[in-house]
């Protein structure tokens, strides 16, 4: 399978702390790829780089879609100026634009949409409004069209509402459409956040610990939903997860990080039996002298 996302040599430093050191992996088109590792291994840092919340210090991140579209994620995050930009005003202008307006919003528009480890819903807005906000690219954003309620504006709004209902139904949230997002029980907030991410129309859905705080039943439902998303909606999923049961069940490919480096990657069962991975999680045998 061709790679949707190729990450090569990604590095990130915070002052003297090296959070990522030459991380490289691939996410195949239409796959479910899990990013695992002990606490502090740099998983969320990888996510923050992918979705544009951090500007990596070096390396390459490239998306290549099935329709031939190529996106250089580093460039739209506003990479550093280069000397050769001076000779080409167009390249200079692009770089300046991305410096000013680039970052996470453009990564999301390029199709990389994420959820958060600690849920970040718009708490004082209803579930429905949360999903409508996410459909920025699909509604009519023109001020005049909205103020005069032109036909195209109304059509776009009605479609957005329909789409939002579809996703609420999908995640069994239909009764909560008009409730405030902050009032919902925890499990439903998690689901609503994934529904909201789906409303953006992602090609690469990044889930940061989607099963954290869910009970076993909810986790099982979640794995079914993730597989259904992949099957029926053409989404490639990349997830960080500590629940190994979930990871082993749904992922096609597992990448193990430790101390900012990829220590193993491959099919889940291979990674599970890899001695290097066991060592990273449990410590080297006999290391502590017991």
């Amino acid at each position, binding site marked *: 399978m061709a790679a949707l996302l190729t990450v090569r040599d990604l590095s990130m430093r915070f002052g003297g702390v090296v959070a990522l050191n030459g991380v490289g992996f691939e996410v195949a088109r239409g796959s479910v790829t899990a990013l695992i590792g002990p606490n502090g291994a740099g998983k969320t840092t990888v996510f923050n780089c992918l*979705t*544009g*919340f951090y500007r990596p210090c070096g390396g390459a991140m490239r998306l290549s879609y099935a329709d031939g579209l190529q996106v250089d994620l580093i460039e739209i995050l506003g990479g550093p100026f280069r000397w050769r930009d001076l000779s080409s005003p167009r390249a200079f202008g692009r770089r300046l634009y991305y410096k*000013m*307006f680039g*970052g*996470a*919003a*453009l990564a*999301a*528009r390029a199709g990389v*949409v*994420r959820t*958060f480890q600690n849920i*970040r*819903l*718009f*708490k*004082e*807005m*209803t579930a*429905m*409004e*949360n999903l*409508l*906000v*996410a459909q*920025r*690219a699909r*509604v*009519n*954003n023109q*001020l005049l069209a*909205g*103020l005069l*309620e032109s036909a195209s504006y109304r059509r776009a709004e*009605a479609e957005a*509402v*329909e789409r*939002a*209902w579809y996703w609420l139904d999908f995640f069994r949230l239909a009764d909560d*459409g*008009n409730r*405030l997002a902050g009032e919902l029980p925890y499990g439903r907030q998690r689901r609503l956040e994934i529904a*909201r*991410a789906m409303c*953006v129309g992602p090609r690469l859905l990044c889930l940061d610990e989607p099963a954290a705080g869910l009970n076993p039943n909810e986790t099982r439902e979640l794995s079914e939903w993730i597989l259904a998303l992949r099957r029926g909606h053409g989404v490639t999923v990349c997830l960080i997860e500590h629940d190994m049961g979930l990871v082993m069940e749904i992922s096609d490919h597992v990448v193990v990080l430790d101390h900012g480096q990829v220590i193993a990657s491959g099919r889940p069962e291979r990674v599970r039996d890899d001695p290097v991975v066991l060592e990273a999680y449990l410590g080297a045998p006999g290391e502590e002298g017991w």
Partner: protein
Amino acid sequence: MNGSGEGAHGVGRWLREAAITGGIAFLLFAPITGVTLSGYTLEGHWQRPLWLAVWVAVGRFLWSWFRARPRPSPALSRLSGAFSLWLDDHRTHLILILLLGAMILPWFIGKYWLNVAILAWIYVLLALGLNIVVGLAGLLDLGFVAFYAVGAYGYALGHQYLGLSFWAALPFGALLAACFGVMLGFPVLRMHGDYLAIVTLGFGEIIRLVINNWMSFTGGPNGVRAPFPSLFGIDFGRRAAPGHVTFHEYFNLPYSNEYRDIFFYFLLLIVVSGMVFLVRRLRRMPLGRNWEALREDEIACRALGIQPVTVKLSAFGLGAMTGGLGGVFFAASQGFVNPTSFTFMESAHILAIVILGGMGSTGGVIAAAVLLTVLPEALRDFAEYRGLLFGCAMVLMMVWRPKGLMGMRRARFRRSGVA
């Protein structure tokens, strides 16, 4: 038996607490109010602290009683629920009735109250503007008066230097203020909360100080004249300028300057109604939703592909535009502007209106603006206590109704497929 015993015990405890509180109050008030210096001798007024202490004790007792009182009965809450449902169904009717009331109002109140009403509408305009910035987009702006000043001076100076009429100044002042709003927006894009509040506060003061000190251009503390608007070239003065007609001559009426105020009142009413309509539409539009999303969580907005830069700038721009409109009307109604009208207190007043009205709720903000303009006029005898009452009202609001007089009403969505 047991219950009544407990009740008696409760009253006894309240009395004891009231007595203790009264005693402490007496000790505190005795040196402050009980002893006065008259010439070189000290005079004792033991009744004064005693009365104050009695009042405090009574207050404490009532407070205990109020706290122990049973919660409102379910029937009452059901009634209020039914009322709010009824309100939802008849919202349009209610708005029409209120609008009608506002239209016949000027014929029943005197000249003095007409001017108060005009001021109230100007504050409604300002509060609607600040509501966009603070209530919807969640950007705490303590310098909103800057845009008010820009609008007012935009008209006054535009008239002086460019010969702008009121009608030309309306869009000009609004646009000028919007430009200033965007200008302020750029440097504060990355700021939040308290830091943003401080910078906007500084911006408000900068505008006022520039106006105050740039003598050659703005006239400094002496202010600038701003003429009253005319209606299709008809003046409202007693005598017309050469080449103009006056209103009373044109319609063959005896002269009265009340026509002028009524005309101005209706003009404001139209503009305010338009603005209310605009804000209500905006709230349901993608732009309004993005403002609220930005208030709730900026990081989540970015993760969804919403560019905070444009959303913030649009909020600042549209809010400032509304404030600028208010400024133009203020200048025209006063006939004269000078920097003392645009102090920080004015910003605080507008912010208080927005908070009192409930962040984001249009109806609440209008009600609060009218209330906070009319009440101080009605309570002119208590002018010294205005600040005190104001502060008390704010504290009580924060305790009992932190979401404002009327909370924000959220849009409800129905499925189109299902009947």
